[in-house]
């Protein structure tokens, strides 16, 4: 089963990379109707609310065991530059910020994840990497915020 997961993940990642490189933002459906697991295990889904860099709320569902990066890919969520190293703990682009209670419930963080988080823009006390968080039923309704990039902050200060 690990092989199947890996294979499906590979297909998704390639497609995701291609899509993020290819398409005008906003032209993609943000529904779950094309997600592979949905039709098969719809009863078992976990709802996740994302806030994108513009503060817009996006509500999607994922399967237990999927990482938050998997969900972003599966649902074609258009977060610029998200998941550059494809979930291998070699960058910090899938950085997400959680509410304090949620953060506490996410479990321990490895040194390696902390090392990468230390390089993330907008690091907070409740930051995690999306590729390291796997969905469980207990996470139903969780909120994850994609941090603004440094440039966004600087731009708003410039008023430009």
């Amino acid at each position: 089963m690990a092989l199947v997961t890996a294979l499906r993940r590979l297909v998704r990642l390639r497609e995701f990379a291609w899509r993020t490189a290819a398409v005008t933002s906003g032209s993609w459906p943000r529904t779950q109707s094309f997600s592979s697991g949905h039709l098969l295990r719809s009863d078992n889904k976990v709802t996740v609310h994302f806030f994108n860099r513009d503060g817009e709320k996006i509500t999607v569902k994922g399967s237990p065991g999927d990482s938050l990066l998997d969900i972003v890919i599966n649902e074609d969520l258009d977060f610029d530059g998200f998941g550059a190293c494809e979930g291998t703990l070699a960058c910090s682009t899938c950085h997400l910020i959680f509410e304090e209670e949620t953060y506490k419930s996410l479990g321990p963080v490895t040194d390696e994840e902390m090392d990468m988080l230390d390089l993330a823009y907008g690091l907070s006390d409740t930051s995690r990497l999306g590729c390291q968080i796997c969905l469980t039923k207990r996470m139903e309704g969780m909120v994850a915020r994609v941090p603004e990039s440094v440039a966004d902050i600087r731009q708003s200060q410039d008023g430009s």
Partner: protein
Amino acid sequence: MLFSGLKVWTSRSLWIHRLHEGINGGGKARYSSCSPKVCIVGGGPAGFYTAQHLIKARPDVTVDIYERLPVPFGLVRFGVAPDHPEVKNVINTFTQTARHKRCSFYGNVNVGKDLSVTELQEAYHAVVLSYGAEGNRRMGVPGEDLSGVYSAKDFVGWYNGLPSCRELGPDLSCETAVILGQGNVALDVARVLLSPIDLLKKTDITQPALEVLEESRVRRVLIVGRRGPTQIAGTVKEVREMVNLPNTRPDMLASDFEGVKEALKDLPRPRKRLTELMLKTAMETPGEKEHERREKASRVWGLRFYRSPVEILADPERSSRMAGIRLAVNNLEGSGEEARAVLTGEMEDVSCGLIISSIGYKSLSIDPSVPFDSHRAIVPNNMGRIQEAPGLYCSGWLKTGPTGVIATTLNNSFDTVRSMLEDMDSGTLNTSAAKPGSQSINALLENRGVKPVTFSEWEKIDSEEVRRGAAIGKPREKLLTVEEMLQVAGK
């Protein structure tokens, strides 16, 4: 379940493909007279992230990437350490960008020599310079050019298969190596020098480099910095890799860490965690297991702080060769990131047979028509807009100077695109007149006898490299000369 899953994926791809066709079907013809044409100089991560973001943000823009070498990806191929294959996953995204209908890659085109930036400006609405930092900062000390002294840029280029560094032939017959500089490049070099050869054998390090490293007698590597532990330029991941490197033990000086523990509480988290890791490594008595590991280790690495190079010392018996380095002992003036190293007047000599200078890369000017700040070694710019040069933009290390990880370059490239889009929308960047784009440039190149390597031709090189690698249990065996690359590309 496997098949039903895959089936959904396949049909979804097709669906996306159709939509893609719908957006871009006949795109080139439809937009040929009024679509913005942008070219990018330099096919490294900054160039590819710039292209990716442009194509995504504007459905009418076409992007051409010009790269000096026949092969793409710049420092992802030639800079990222061979034992960091995860970082190279970004190549998958770059490949999807390059295969996009509105993106073309032209390798083997040397802008500044084969083409001028002015010629590119005539052919395109906008030109983005993202050719990086190919020079290296010199130490500026006597003896810098003695044999046995290498720049980290060349050393990294050598083990990563950069054609211009193929014949470096570093002499690794000594026991002690000194690396000057404590950034991630310095730590990469230290790790490659000390890694068990069996770990490197499974990477895409070049076979000639592997053979030299296999015979290496280097047992001790000192990584020297001007300032203290709380100013080290490397990041915690790379330092932790040293701490955990099999068959090595750390050798640090307790005196370098005086007062560091007390300073911890005021440090921001990333700096704090990095400093704590070094403190623990240098000062704490190791547990039984770690003690045993260190006892068995046959190789040694150490960070040395508060030391600046003063002179490379020649071998008294072979005056063209170095035999050591004289270091000046520094004090710090001020604290934190801004602290300055000040000479105490005290000196110290270290015997070594290899010196690698890793004090930073440096961008070079490729065309006198482009403004260049030679003091800071960057193109002066405002959020990627090159000053006093409408239609010219920059991204990556040429824009910011040579620091930062891949995510930094990603954000920096996206910023440049944002500036360009604003200029297109405001009319500051005029895209109303049709421009010939690659059509006229290709004609110029043909006249000049330059044969560009397209992305599909690079994919032939890629397949050949992967094939050669597979034969010896490596992910890839890189082609090492431009001639061979061109030959495999069918040029």
